[in-house]
């Protein structure tokens, strides 16, 4: 088999698994998860072969693996779709394959495969646990299996298909289709426990919010097709003539060039998908879904897809810009939104109590780093951070799922009714759940960019140095401060969850998850550390040059002109800053939260007071959107549409027609039906009756009288006939 054929086959197993599970095997839990995990493993294997081949191929960016078929017949010729593996797609494929496979395996344990069915469990609600009578006759509460187990695997298989298809595709249209498949799956999976109103709302919110971004992206897609007549990556992005034309042609909007406008529209798609301000609101609420979904959406696939898209279209977005030039408006928008979102989300994460919500905001913040990096032109750094982030964030989410699992186990054991996701109910879990603790620690350190050993350090350091070396001090300052906050809330999370003493009975009785859950954690933890080593800058003191900076060589070929020679100027400042802020933030976070007793308020609250309330309520953005969009929408639907248009105008027309008909009917009835038709009928009937009544006496019952009548009639008739004929 050629490598191109193999690339075509990568997305296939998950979608087959989806249909098989949905149609045939949904009653059988074991078969369903075997199909799903098996399909993920097949895709993983194919991806690894492709990745390996891609790495071995020199000059891959000039000569990517490409295969195309005719797809849609157009007026002249065909719309061709195909697959393409270039360095960016290859590295994306690498982390997608690993994280997807790990999440699939982890889901088996997370959904309590092999546990009994709960007595009170209903489809659409989280499992409540089952009562089991042990050998000693005692009744114990144990976790129960997810009621819609097979459905979950069907959905994430479809999700995986969407992501694989998005990565291997070679044009914007099929990318958009895969992008929307993921949007659908995220809707289905966030609302997986649809029995909970909050999950339903979150699903709708996620779907609608991302749809806003997608609308802009579709506009960008349409504009691009109109301008260039193609949506193929290579024909647009690797073609300096097309890029130059687009960069020089003025668009009708705000004095932007066409390249800038299309880039901006596509970037808005990313804002929705990667949850950047102001469309970030859906991502924290998306935590209503099962935790493997959170890992899937918020680390491995969907949000990464957003950044992947802007990375992919960076040549277009930055067309006409050279390193060292002033930023184009589009790049300026990206840098501004990115830097703002990074700080914004990191600050909100400080005041969240829910273990998954902290991670959700950290995801927004980290994605914002990538966007910012792209905005200032640090292409390689952004791609690098995308890869490292995918690994350590998938790890952290799966870890948090493991923690929640342990807490639920403890809650079932003690019979407490507590929120198993509230970090202030935890504490001391490090001793109960050692594997989860150590892997969480690795993930958390990577997230906060702990120097030298973690992947997050290397990628974040590159972004910081990219920002400063391009001369954007403000951006650099914001990112550095966000990095400090990141370290602080990570330390807060780790300290509250794993260190100190247990604050509830559930935390006291939590226990380590099964091997099927901890194994993916260990694998991802391995990558969370080692992935960083492939991208150590060559000019880094001491370590630089020990390993070749493979990542930069590999990926930077994606750019036609700029970025190839690395960044202009090198200052030791970012390195010093990143060496300082992460340990400092971690230390401070640990110190503040090292001994929080049960039932107390957050120590941070007493320090920053009202600001804490502001952060806790997420700057009241949700409330603002509620006032600005939701209430007007409800007004539009309820008052304007229903009361005025529907009940007033449409119902008025309908009612008017009805009334007219009624009036006509009455008129007909009164002036035609009753006098004419009924009258005639009645006259005939009553006349007949009266005649009968009046002639009744003839029927005397005496045969001889009848006879006389007959004879008389004959005589009279005979007489009449006689006179008439004579």
């Amino acid at each position, binding site marked *: 088999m050629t490598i191109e054929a193999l690339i075509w086959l990568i997305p296939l197993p998950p979608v087959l698994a989806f249909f098989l599970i949905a149609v045939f095997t949904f009653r059988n839990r074991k078969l369903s998860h075997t199909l799903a995990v098996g399909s993920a493993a097949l895709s993983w294997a194919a991806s690894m072969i492709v990745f390996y081949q891609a790495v071995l191929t020199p000059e891959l960016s000039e000569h990517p693996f490409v295969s195309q078929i005719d797809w849609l017949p157009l007026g002249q010729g065909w719309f061709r779709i195909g697959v393409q593996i270039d360095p960016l797609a290859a590295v994306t494929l690498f982390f997608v394959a690993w994280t997807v496979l790990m999440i699939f395996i982890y889901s088996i344990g997370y959904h309590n495969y092999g546990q009994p069915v709960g007595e009170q469990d209903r489809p659409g609600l989280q499992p409540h646990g089952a009562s089991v009578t042990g050998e000693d006759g005692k009744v114990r509460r144990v976790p129960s299996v997810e009621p819609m187990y097979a459905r979950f695997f069907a959905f994430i298989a479809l999700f995986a298909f969407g992501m694989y298809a998005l990565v291997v595709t070679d044009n914007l249209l099929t990318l958009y289709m895969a992008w929307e498949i993921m949007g659908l799956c995220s809707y289905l999976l966030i609302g997986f426990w649809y029995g909970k109103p909050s999950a339903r709302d979150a699903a709708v919110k996620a779907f609608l919010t991302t749809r806003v971004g997608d609308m802009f992206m579709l506009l960008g897609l349409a504009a691009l097709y109109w301008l260039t007549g193609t949506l193929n990556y290579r024909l647009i992005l690797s073609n300096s003539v097309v890029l130059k034309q687009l960069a020089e042609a003025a668009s009708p909007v705000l004095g932007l060039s066409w390249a800038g406008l299309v880039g901006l529209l596509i970037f808005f798609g990313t804002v929705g998908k990667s949850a950047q301000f102001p469309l970030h609101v859906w991502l924290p609420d998306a935590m209503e879904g099962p935790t493997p979904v959170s890992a899937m959406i918020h680390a491995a696939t969907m949000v990464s897809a957003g950044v992947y898209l802007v990375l992919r279209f960076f040549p277009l977005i930055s067309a006409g810009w050279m390193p060292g030039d002033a930023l184009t408006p589009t790049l300026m928008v990206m840098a501004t939104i990115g830097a703002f979102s990074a700080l914004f989300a990191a600050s909100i994460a400080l005041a969240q109590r829910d273990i998954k919500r902290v991670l959700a905001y950290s995801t927004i913040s980290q994605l914002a780093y990538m966007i910012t990096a792209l905005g200032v032109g640090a292409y390689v750094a952004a791609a690098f951070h995308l890869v490292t982030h995918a690994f350590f964030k998938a790890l952290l989410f799966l870890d948090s799922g493991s923690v929640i699992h342990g807490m639920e186990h403890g809650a079932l054991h003690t019979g407490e009714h507590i929120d198993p996701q509230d970090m202030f109910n935890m504490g001391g879990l490090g001793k109960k759940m050692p594997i989860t603790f150590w892997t969480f620690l690795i993930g958390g350190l990577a997230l906060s960019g702990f120097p030298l050993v973690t992947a997050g350090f290397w990628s974040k350091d590159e972004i910081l140095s990219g920002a400063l070396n391009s001369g954007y001090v403000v951006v650099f300052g914001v990112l550095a401060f966000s990095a400090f906050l990141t370290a602080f809330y990570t330390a807060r999370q780790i300290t509250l969850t794993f260190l100190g003493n247990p604050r509830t009975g559930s935390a006291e009785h939590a226990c380590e998850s099964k091997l099927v859950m901890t194994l993916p954690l260990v694998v991802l933890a391995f990558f969370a550390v080692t992935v960083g080593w492939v991208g150590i800058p060559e000019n880094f003191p001491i370590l630089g040059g020990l390993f070749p900076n493979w990542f930069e060589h590999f990926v930077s070929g994606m750019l036609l002109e700029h970025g190839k020679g690395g960044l202009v100027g090198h200052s030791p400042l970012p390195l010093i800053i990143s060496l300082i802020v992460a340990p400092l933030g971690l230390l401070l976070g640990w110190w503040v939260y090292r001994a929080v007793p049960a039932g107390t308020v957050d120590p941070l609250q007493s320090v920053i007071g009202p600001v804490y309330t502001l952060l806790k309520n997420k700057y009241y953005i949700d409330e603002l959107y509620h006032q600005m969009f939701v209430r007007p929408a409800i007004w539009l639907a309820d008052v304007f549409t229903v009361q005025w248009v529907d009940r007033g105008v449409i119902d008025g027309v309908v009612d008017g027609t009805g009334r007219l008909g009624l009036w006509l009917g009455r008129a007909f009835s009164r002036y035609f039906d009753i006098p004419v038709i009924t009258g005639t009928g009645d006259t005939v009937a009553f006349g007949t009756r009266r005649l009968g009544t009046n002639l*009744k006496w003839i029927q*005397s019952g*005496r*045969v*001889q009288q009848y006879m006389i009548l007959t004879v008389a009639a004959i005589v009279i008739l005979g007489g009449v006939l006689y006179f008439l004929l004579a």
Partner: protein
Amino acid sequence: MIPLSWYLMFAALLFCVGLYGVLARRNAIGILMGVELMLNAVNINLLAFWSYLYAMRLNGLVFVAIVFVAAAAEAAVGLALIISAYRRRNTVIVEELSLLKG
């Protein structure tokens, strides 16, 4: 030869006697006998016209024979009905059998 009108007058007289019997008698058997008389009056008419107008053909005679057979059958049915009515109601007086009224 006896003129045709005599036969016709005789037949009309016989018919009127029969008719009177039918209309005036109270006994059902008497009425039946009146009916037979009227039937015979018609037969006489038929025979008279045949004999004067179409004597060379046999049609008239055959018709009359068939009418007699039909009249005999009819009289048998009528008598049977009267017997049946008598058995049920113990009377053959038609005024007491006045069930056919509106």
